[in-house]
């Protein structure tokens, strides 16, 4: 890799540091006639010493911080004025007037709405916030049973739609911040963990039927201090080319200076189960339906005089074994003679869950630390899948002197997954073997050997021999230095790394279909490395009480390199040989890819009289993915806020405790998800013949390829009433994406399928509402309700050629419709006279053809959100959290296969719902008479299997009890809480599948198709949390 930067950088830094060192020497010699001043600072409420209070000599940057007991000591002149400040308390100014010993009390700060919010390259108090940022306290979510912290956020952040997709722990979830902006570029938000832009795309290469793992699940939720989701352009524009889909900022826990060392231990254990299973036909019922199909098909053939079909359907298969025994199909015995075999209960289990976390935090005057280790093991509710994460974390900060702070953040994780195919595809598919196999077929053949039926594996053989796993080793870390060049001028440099070694292996022995001919082994190692360097300079001069100005400059350099080595071996002497070195034939592959990004950004924020806030920012990004002429993109944003409550006319209106209006406009970009070399014309060297290498065109060039740009206008109101007992935030927004990155279809007669171009336009508009109400706060009782709801309307504004995605082209992307719209033959009813399905004939030509497929609903809900009630009474805490979604569609693809009407015979299970089929004139039902596969009544893409996916889910219920201090302090324990929690305890939905969030594919354009994947489990956990 050619990175010439560090050299000029190094030289530059030496000079900068020389200048800085001179400055420190200069500034530390300015004062004279000093004496030692000592004192103690206590809380006016509890009279306990307050640690970590800033004590600064007014007009200088000299000062100190109180220790664990609230004591401080510093050098100051006799006429100095001390400025005492601490978060959560009102600041004081204390003139020394010759005193050398002080006893001070700080009042609690009643303005509690001013929580600190982390934003791009800094943090600020909520009152000063212009953009739309939702802060999540991970304490509220980390008990929710899920593999990754983003999955835990469902229903917690207004405007952020999260779908879990599967019950396999640690698999990718879909997360959309204010809709989706792109067809072929990524729609996932940018994840920034302690300043490092981390990889959010799965490195999985093993085929688990369209599913992918979540690299975000390498993060232990217990290490997270806060999560901020940046939603509008004002908030995300500083991330420029990365900001179009929102930004998730994760801050991990750090110690505090002058803090006693605290030990915290959490342990929990739990059990998870499928809330329900599918309802299948018995063997006799299955046979009856197949026979009925034969009779219908024979009658149809007779009516149309189709001789081949009359021969074919002359005899039903389920007939007495002595009834025309030599005719085809051969007799299988009467329906009532058929057996029923239950495979579902062999696959599903009560899964065990365990989680342990131990952390140590503390600090002295100049050093603070957070050291933690965690272990988490989650079994899936289907055998043999499990997920295991072991992590440790070291965050350390060291004050070098009064002006320089150096810190490191380190996360090491090992995530092990015992995997299996819980998605699409016949071979190795767990639910294909357990659910899609007809119930009447025995798992063994006449010789008693286990056999797979209907083209699927034998379930028992699968469960006994599955050997697919992956190990992710992940390091995410950064090293930074904060330099207070002047009180008003701060500089930060940061070097970050995200390194992921993803090691996968499969072994399919001869008992399994994929390995049936001599065994099959694969091994794949993917290494993904991101390194990142960043400098920021912040200037915030004092301009008097009415003016607040903050200026930020910064730059970022980022490089991503992805390498993969893959080997595959076939033909093993026997099942004991499992390494590729023992294979009779083996093949291997090596791939390499990389991209770089260079960025510069600046922001200026100005506030007048604590009433009017303005800011303006711009970021320039250069990407290696685009040609020289188009590689730089510029992303500006402006924002303004008016704190109306601060105006004279509202200041004395007691009922209104806060009122603020915010507006912003900005442009952000997107280039994620496209190939690193998407703009180039390429030939590949992998088209060999007769064992010699061959070359062939691979990709058409597009020198004009450039950034996708999303402009967003957003406005919001923050309001608080009755001392902020009731607070509300309302946002409305409109996003419009132009130059959308698309693999534009070209006529295949050119020899190419498509090329990358900027040709789509997509809009998202919507609103978000968040309410928080302290319903009761009286004595020992507190009851708080938070509620959020959002609506997003997505629309493809411009798309030249409609494109189809998903199995059976179930999803169509078409101009004028939302992304991910379902494309189906709309079944109107079943004719009670004939039993035939009647489809809407869109072009009324009397025939049902592809032209009659129509867009009918989409995966987008009309409304979604969550409601949380927390009650604290004495030592008890109770939290009840519902999430909901209304108005989205799900294609029940399991039921599509399972409601085949008998025409699939031995090739597929039949669901019990098929028994409601039409049988005789006068029957009123929506299930037509069986008459074939993918014809007439059973067309692929029929709307009969497209269902309402609305739901209301009791996402989490937690009850905790904190033991009284007196009882435990004798044991040296500061804090002891025991709790029980449940996840997904209730689900209210009309969806007939198991989970309306299930989706067979992790592909962003193929969501909402439910096939072959387990539901999210219902789980219960018991836990204890101890603080020493």
């Amino acid at each position, binding site marked *: 890799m050619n990175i010439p930067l560090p050299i000029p950088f190094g030289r530059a830094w030496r000079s900068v540091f020389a200048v800085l060192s001179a400055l420190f020497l200069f500034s530390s010699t300015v004062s004279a006639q000093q004496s030692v001043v000592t004192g103690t600072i206590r809380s006016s409420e509890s009279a306990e010493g307050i640690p970590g209070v800033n004590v600064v000599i007014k007009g200088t940057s000299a000062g100190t911080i109180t220790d664990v007991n609230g004591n401080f000591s510093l050098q100051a002149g006799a006429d100095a004025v001390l400025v005492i400040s601490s978060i959560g308390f009102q600041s004081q100014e204390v003139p020394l007037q010759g005193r050398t010993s002080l006893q001070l009390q700080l009042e609690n700060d009643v303005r509690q709405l001013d929580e600190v919010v982390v934003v791009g390259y800094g943090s600020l108090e909520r009152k000063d916030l212009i953009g739309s940022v939702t802060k999540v306290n991970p304490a509220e979510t980390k008990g929710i049973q899920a593999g990754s912290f983003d999955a835990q956020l469902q229903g917690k952040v207004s405007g952020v739609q999260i779908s879990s997709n599967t019950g396999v722990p640690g698999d990718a979830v879909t997360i959309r911040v204010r809709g989706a902006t792109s067809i072929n570029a990524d729609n996932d938000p940018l994840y920034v963990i302690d300043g490092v832009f981390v990889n959010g795309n799965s490195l999985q290469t093993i085929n688990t039927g369209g599913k992918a793992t979540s690299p975000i699940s390498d993060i232990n939720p217990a290490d997270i201090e806060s999560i901020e989701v940046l939603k509008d352009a004002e908030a995300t524009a500083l991330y420029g080319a990365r900001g179009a889909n929102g930004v998730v900022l994760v801050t991990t826990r750090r110690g505090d200076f002058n803090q006693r060392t605290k030990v915290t231990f959490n342990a929990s254990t739990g059990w998870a189960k499928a809330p329900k299973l599918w309802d299948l036909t018995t063997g006799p019922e299955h046979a009856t339906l197949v026979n009925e199909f034969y009779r219908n098909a024979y009658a149809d053939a007779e009516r149309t005089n189709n001789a081949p079909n009359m021969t074919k359907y002359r005899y039903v298969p389920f007939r007495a074994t002595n009834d025309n025994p030599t005719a085809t199909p051969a007799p299988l015995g009467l329906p009532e003679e058929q057996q029923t075999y239950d495979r579902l209960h062999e696959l599903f289990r009560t899964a065990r869950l365990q989680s342990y976390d131990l952390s140590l935090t503390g600090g002295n005057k100049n050093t603070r630390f957070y050291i933690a280790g965690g272990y988490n093991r989650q079994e899936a509710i289907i055998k043999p899948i499990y997920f295991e994460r072991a992590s440790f974390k070291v965050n350390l900060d060291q004050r070098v002197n009064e002006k320089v702070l150096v810190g490191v953040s380190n996360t090491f994780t090992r995530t092990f997954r015992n995997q299996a195919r819980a998605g699409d595809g016949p071979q190795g598919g767990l639910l294909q073997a357990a659910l899609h196999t007809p119930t009447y077929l025995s798992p063994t053949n006449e010789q008693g050997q286990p056999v797979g039926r209907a083209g699927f594996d034998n379930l028992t053989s699968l469960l006994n021999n599955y050997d697919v796993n992956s190990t992710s080793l992940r390091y995410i870390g950064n090293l930074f230095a904060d330099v207070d060049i002047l009180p008003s001028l701060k500089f930060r440099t940061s070097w970050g790394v995200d390194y992921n070694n993803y090691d996968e292996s499969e072994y399919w022995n001869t008992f399994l279909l994929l390995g*049936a001919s001599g065994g099959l082994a694969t091994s794949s190692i993917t290494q993904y490395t991101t390194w990142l360097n960043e400098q920021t300079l912040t200037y915030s001069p004092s301009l008097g009480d009415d003016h607040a100005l903050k200026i930020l400059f910064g730059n970022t350099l980022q490089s991503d390199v992805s390498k993969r080595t893959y080997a595959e071996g076939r033909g093993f002497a026997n099942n004991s040989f499992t390494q590729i070195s023992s294979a009779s034939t083996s093949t291997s592959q090596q791939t390499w890819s990389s991209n770089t990004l260079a960025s510069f950004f600046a922001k200026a924020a100005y506030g007048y009289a604590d009433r009017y806030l303005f800011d303006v920012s711009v970021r320039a990004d250069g990407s290696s993915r685009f040609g020289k002429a188009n590689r730089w993109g510029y992303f500006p944003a402006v924002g303004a806020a008016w704190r109306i409550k601060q105006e004279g006319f509202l200041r004395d209106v007691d009922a209104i405790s806060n009122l603020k209006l915010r507006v912003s406009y900005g442009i952000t970009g997107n280039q994620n998800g496209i190939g690193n070399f998407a703009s180039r014309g390429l*030939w590949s060297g*992998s088209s060999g013949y007769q064992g010699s290498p061959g070359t*062939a065109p691979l990709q058409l060039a597009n020198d004009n390829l450039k950034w996708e740009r999303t402009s967003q206008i957003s406005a919001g109101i923050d309001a608080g009433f009755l001392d902020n007992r009731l607070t509300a935030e309302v946002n409305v927004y409109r996003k419009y994406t132009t130059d959308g990155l698309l693999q534009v279809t070209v006529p295949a*007669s050119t020899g190419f399928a498509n090329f990358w171009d900027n040709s789509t336009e997509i809009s998202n508009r919507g609103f978000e509402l968040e309410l928080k109400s302290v319903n009761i706060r009286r004595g020992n009782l507190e009851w708080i309700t938070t509620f959020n709801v959002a609506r997003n309307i997505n629309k493809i504004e411009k798309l030249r050629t409609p494109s189809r995605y998903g199995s059976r082209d179930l999803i169509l992307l078409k101009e004028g419709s939302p992304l991910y719209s379902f494309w189906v033959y709309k079944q109107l009813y079943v004719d009670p006279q004939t039993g035939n399905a009647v489809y809407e004939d869109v072009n009324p030509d009397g025939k049902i053809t592809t032209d009659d497929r129509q867009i009918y609903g989409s995966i987008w809900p009309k409304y979604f959100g969550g409601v949380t009630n927390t009650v604290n009474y004495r030592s008890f805490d109770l939290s009840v959290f519902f999430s909901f979604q209304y108005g989205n569609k799900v294609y029940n693809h399991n039921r599509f296969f399972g409601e085949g009407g008998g025409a699939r015979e031995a090739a597929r299970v039949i669901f019990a719902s098929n028994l409601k089929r039409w049988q005789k004139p006068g029957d009123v039902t929506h299930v037509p008479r069986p008459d074939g*596969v993918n014809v007439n009544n059973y067309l692929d893409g029929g709307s009969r299997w497209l269902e309402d996916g609305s739901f209301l889910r009791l996402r989490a219920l937690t009850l905790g009890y904190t033991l009284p201090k007196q009882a435990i302090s004798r044991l040296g324990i500061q804090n002891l809480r025991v709790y029980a929690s449940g996840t997904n305890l209730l689900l209210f939905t009309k969806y007939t599948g198991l989970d309306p969030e299930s989706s067979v594919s992790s592909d962003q354009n193929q969501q909402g198709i439910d096939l072959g994947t387990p539901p999210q489990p219902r789980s219960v956990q018991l836990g204890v949390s101890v603080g020493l």
Partner: protein
Amino acid sequence: MDTLTNQTMKINRYYIAVIAVLVFGACDNFLDVSPKDSVSDEQTIFDKGSSEAALRGVYSALGSAGYYGTSFQSIGYLSGDNIQWTGSQSQVQEFINHQVKADNATISSAWVAIYQTINRANNVLAKVPNVADATLTDALRNQILGEAYFIRALAYFDLARVWGGVPILTKPTLTAGDNLGVRRSTTEEVYQQVLTDLQTAEPLLPLTTDRYRATRKTAWALLARYYLYRKAYDKAEEYASKLLDDNTNYQLLKPYGSFFQADVRGTRESVLEIFYNGTTEQNTHRNQWQPQTNSGTRQWAPNDAFVALANNATVGGNRSVLVAKDNQNRWYGNLYYRATPSDPSYIIRIAELYLIRAEARAAQEKLDASRGDLNAVRDRAGLGATPAVTKDELLLAIENERRVEFALEPHRWFDLVRTDRAASVLSVSDKNRYVLPIPADQILADTVLRQNEAYR
């Protein structure tokens, strides 16, 4: 304070200078990242080695999964009357029911793969003539061009068989704007293109025997088939004879299974077959045929009628080796079976040339000679002489012989269509359905492409 501000400004100025250096000096280098897995399309065919490599790329496309690997072949046999659908992908059933819809995934992948083959051939044909390399002799240059012309001829022949008239493209697509807006030619024009390419290829190709590559003899064999389809029976007979007379190189092997069983390849039975080494070049056709116990998906299988024919000693003879039974007593097709996916794709076998000549001779009333050719194929299958006497009986006997002989190869549907027998044998009464629909995604992508009449 003033001093401090000055210091600040100095530092700011210095910092800005650092940024400026980065922007104008280093950034362009930093942002230049080149791929390693592929190369720029500006350096593709420039010497002997790269010309040969590009030609191998054309063969690779010919053998790809969408073309002779699986999809195109399956169109030819699934649409006949020998195969039943036994898997999960219901697009397969559309061929068997003769109700193929425009959004059928198999026709889409075949269309894409065939045109990809044509574009690769066009690259060779456009660029190899300009290669300046002393080691690229005229003979070799001609051979490379001849092979590319042959493959393009075969590609257009196959397009015409499936869809009728299609867009004819003879120049490579080099940029995103090339080759757009080309309307469908008529079926006649496409067949004319096939003939032009074959006649151009014939003199360029060497008169050698190579069963994995096109030679002049391969061109003759395809011309024989071409003229049979075009009902130019004298020419069909003439070109078939050119190979049948060369019986040191081309022979019917006894028994039937000897041209594919026991992992053999490139036997004297074969006129043209695609070579797959099983590792970097894989033929996954077996996965559709083999049962699960052999790591296949048994997506389709011989139907009851064909199993009966194959196992009938007076019809199938020793061709019964085309079918086998799995451990659940289910029949499966066994022409493509190799565990290492290296089964050849058979494009032209000498048996076909016997039957082409038999049909051509029968059509020309040379009944005894015709019977002789038919009996050669029957004899190899272990059967007695044909009882057919009259011309019509003989033509029907040849049709039925082809049904069994090529049951798992792409012939049955095309045979019944070219002889206009699909109506009576397969109950496909609408002749507009003798061609399949243009893939719906292509109709969407290409505004000048018109759908075949039966599918509008």
